[in-house]
């Protein structure tokens, strides 16, 4: 890279760290009437409080394939809860039930004692927000990084435009991507995409955040960074976190409690220590593998 290139790049970054964004992004979002509504946010946006989740006798089949078998789980408010298990045991499907992307055949899911399957009208009155970080990140290709992060705020008109820009900046800083608002999502690496997806989820100021395989495409160093982000979030914000992962060490390191799923059933629940000491052969089989298991202790 030549000196002039470097200068150009630095200049670009400096420009993009301007909270008002570039001329074009100002012009585009100037159409949004939110710009005249000033600096305040809707009541309740700032505060988030962990929610409790109660899953009762949940069943789901696709044709003859019985994927989720009588799942029962209780997750406490403010807890970091991991669901581990081999691929294809219905972990991600369980997450999709919690965020209402799938409907159960039988059983129910209560979040803060609200049934998630009830009609929209009742859900509109519920007092919690949830967001999900998808395995593929699922960023919107047509939007820039900043627009991705601010999408919910703009579409729901939570805040005035100037405030939204400041929130975008804050959330990107939180995941270590300060000043990258104006980049296209296609210019990002896998790890950066994941972090933008987390920033997008955080912009909702959620009470419940769900991570679907957060480390699936990441190298060990980036996984560590991600773990630090999740831990620092837990310290700063009071929210309930659910992590679905087959990355054993990641889950055991972060979580307050861990559930192990196998073949559509929850076979063990406990603190990371309890899971490590479990005598259940299925659990032992999963955690004491050669290449990705936990070190020592009979591996």
């Amino acid at each position, binding site marked *: 890279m030549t000196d002039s290139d470097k200068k150009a790049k630095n200049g670009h970054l400096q420009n993009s760290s301007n909270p008002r964004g570039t001329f074009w992004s100002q012009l*585009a*979002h100037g*159409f*949004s*009437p939110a710009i005249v509504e000033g600096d305040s946010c809707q009541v309740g946006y700032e505060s988030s409080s962990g929610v409790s989740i109660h899953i009762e006798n949940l069943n789901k089949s696709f044709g003859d394939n019985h994927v989720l078998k009588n799942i029962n789980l209780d997750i406490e408010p403010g807890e970091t809860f991991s669901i581990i298990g081999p691929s294809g045991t219905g972990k991600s499907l369980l997450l*999709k039930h919690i*965020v*209402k*992307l799938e409907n159960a055949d039988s059983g129910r899911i209560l979040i803060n004692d609200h049934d998630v399957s009830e009609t929209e009208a009742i859900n509109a009155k519920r007092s919690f927000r*949830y*967001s*999900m970080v*998808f*395995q*593929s990140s*699922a*960023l*919107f*290709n047509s939007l820039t990084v900043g627009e991705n992060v601010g*999408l*919910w705020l703009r*579409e*729901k008109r939570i805040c005035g435009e100037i405030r939204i820009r400041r929130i975008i900046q804050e959330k990107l800083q939180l995941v270590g991507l300060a000043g990258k608002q104006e980049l296209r999502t296609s210019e990002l690496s896998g790890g950066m995409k994941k972090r933008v997806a987390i920033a*997008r989820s955080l912009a*909702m100021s959620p009470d419940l955040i769900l991570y679907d395989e957060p480390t699936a495409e990441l190298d060990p160093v980036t996984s560590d960074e991600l773990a630090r982000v999740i831990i620092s979030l837990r310290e700063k914000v009071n929210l309930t976190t659910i992590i679905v992962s087959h990355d054993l060490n990641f889950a055991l390191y972060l979580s307050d409690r861990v559930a192990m799923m196998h073949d559509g059933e929850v076979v063990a629940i406990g603190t990371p220590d309890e899971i490590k000491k479990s005598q259940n052969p299925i659990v032992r089989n999963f955690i004491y593998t050669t290449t990705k298991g936990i070190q020592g202790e009979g591996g």
Partner: protein
Amino acid sequence: MFMRFFATMGSKLLNVAQGLGEMLALLCQTIYYFKEAPRNLTSILRQMNIIGVDTLPIAMLVSLFVGMVLSVQTGTELALYGTQEAIGAIVGVSMVKELGPVMTGLLVAGRIGSAMAAEIGAMQVYEEIDALKTLEISPVRYLAMPRLIACLLTVPALVAFAIVVGIFGGGVIAEVNPKINVPFSVYYDNMIRALSYKEIFKGLLKAMVFGGIIGHVGCYIGFKTSGGARGIGESTTRSVVLSFLLIMVANYFLTRFMI
């Protein structure tokens, strides 16, 4: 043997009925969200730019040659009977009533409808639609509504341009082709006498319906996409085929009831 035949036919019929029902349901939802259009003005304008401005050059080129070939074909036949002055009326009326709306409709279906199906299909496959749902943003409002409105408004505008260019092309050929040899002024007067505002309005109304078909089919097929890159490819093809079919069917019925 017969039982299996009827079972296959029955299940195919059920599939078609289910598809029609889903399309109708999506259409109703999309129209319901029209009330939110002012909020999504930016994305409507962006879509109108893609559908209108980007398609305009190719649409005009196509209709120029359609007008020219029409003029050559009918003009040389008419010249055999010495009635070639009528060529202005023939080119004008056929461009306004049929060729302008239908040719442009097919062009936009191939160019824009397929792109819409592919774009929304890719969003479906790569979980972006799910992400929208978890952000509590309705995919129908955010994706389908701006596209349908943009199609409804932009396709008639494209057709208007196409008609003008097509008639102009026909006129030029009528003047320069030695076998036809009709001066442009005669061609023009003849064409003006044959056309009424009502005819033009009907032509543009057709164009609007075709635009609606293209936008709606593109979005519906996109939302129904599943199965990775291959699924996206299939959706692209399916949207073009379904749009072509529906445009032709709608064209017959619109013509039949607007006569």
